[in-house]
């Protein structure tokens, strides 16, 4: 049994990068799905199309839309691939998910909402508290991701 555990550790180390990427991509897909379900369909804060939308915003939105679907499906096939190679490194994968969610949320909050002015989080309200909550939570998610990533490395080394 000890040799099997050792083998799995070697497999994981060989696929460290792929574990992180698979989690990261899943995180990006997850946050996009969350955005569609919660902000578009349930709260109706976001809309299919905003009058203020610029061409650059439309392109960015379309690219992200396609990417998030691909990321969701692709990352799960990567996960299946890691599992059949006995190389799934759960801690590292979860760290990747946090980083994916956080990085995209920060991109959405800074680039899409503010720089490209694709849309705002909510309309008809004082937007600053929403922007702060959005970007600070994104920042916290990234921090959690980094901490988890470092801890997974430490656990592996010991």
């Amino acid at each position, binding site marked *: 049994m000890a040799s*099997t555990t050792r*083998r799995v550790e070697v*497999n994981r180390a060989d696929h460290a990068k792929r574990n992180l990427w698979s989690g990261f991509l899943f995180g990006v897909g997850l946050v996009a799905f969350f955005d569609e379900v919660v902000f578009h369909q349930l709260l109706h804060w976001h809309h*299919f*199309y905003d*009058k203020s*939308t610029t061409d650059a915003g*439309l*392109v960015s*939105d*379309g*690219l992200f*839309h*396609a*990417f998030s*679907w*691909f990321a969701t*499906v*692709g990352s799960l*096939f990567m996960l*299946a*691939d890691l599992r*059949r*190679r*006995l*190389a799934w490194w759960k801690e590292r994968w979860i760290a990747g998910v946090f980083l994916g969610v956080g990085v995209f949320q920060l991109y959405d909050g800074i680039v899409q909402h503010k720089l490209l002015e694709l849309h705002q989080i909510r309309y008809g309200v004082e937007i600053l508290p929403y922007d702060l909550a959005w970007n600070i939570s994104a920042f916290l998610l990234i921090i959690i991701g980094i901490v988890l990533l470092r801890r997974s490395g430490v656990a592996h080394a010991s």
Partner: protein
Amino acid sequence: MSHMHHEHGFDWMLLLPLPFIGGLMLYVGLLLATKRPWPLHRTLFAVLGTLSAVSAVTGPIAELAHTNFVYHMLGHLLLGMLAPLLFVLAAPMTLCLRTMPVRWARRLSAVLRSGPSRLVTNPVVASLLNVGGLWVLYKTGLYHLMQTNMLIHLLVHLHLFLAGYVFTLSMISLDPVAHRTSYRFRAVVFLLAFAAHSILAKHLYASPPAGVPLEQARSGSQLMYYGGDLIELVIIAVLCLQWYRAARPRTSYN
């Protein structure tokens, strides 16, 4: 626009379903002739693909599509996306190659490997033909022309289907293709094509082709966006599944 139907005495639109029905008959004929087992689900895909294409070019959807943008979009999804996907999954060329007499099969295989086939089944070319064609259709006067000129109407439908077919083929063909590009390359090209489709759908929401009422443009573009998502999701899943099988580890990891 019923004048389109009656001014010539003969309704040319009745011809549109024939190639699909003929194709299905050929498929079934080959199926009866083949001596090797052929998976039932492939036949089912061929039948469903034919139904999807035929329902887009004739009957109530085709009729309403002349005047209503929402039905036009529904037809577009059925003929340009769903039917091609189902036909690709039916693997008709493989069935042909294994059933035909050797001499014919050699000839067909030479055609499949020829320069023109190589060109149109290149993912980049196929994507430009497919999504590029849609941008041309909706952003020039072509859409309006298609609703008034019968020949252009036929050609647009033909292009819509063929471009959808080579596009799907270039991404996830089960049939032999001239030169199979890498998974990574196909994934990137597919991503851009998918994005261009989504961008066009949202763009049409706000600036529809001339003559399309805003109400119809809104429902139609959302149908294009979310309906397209569903079909593209299946293509992504098949592409990933093919990668998953091809990337099967050769060595034991135990």
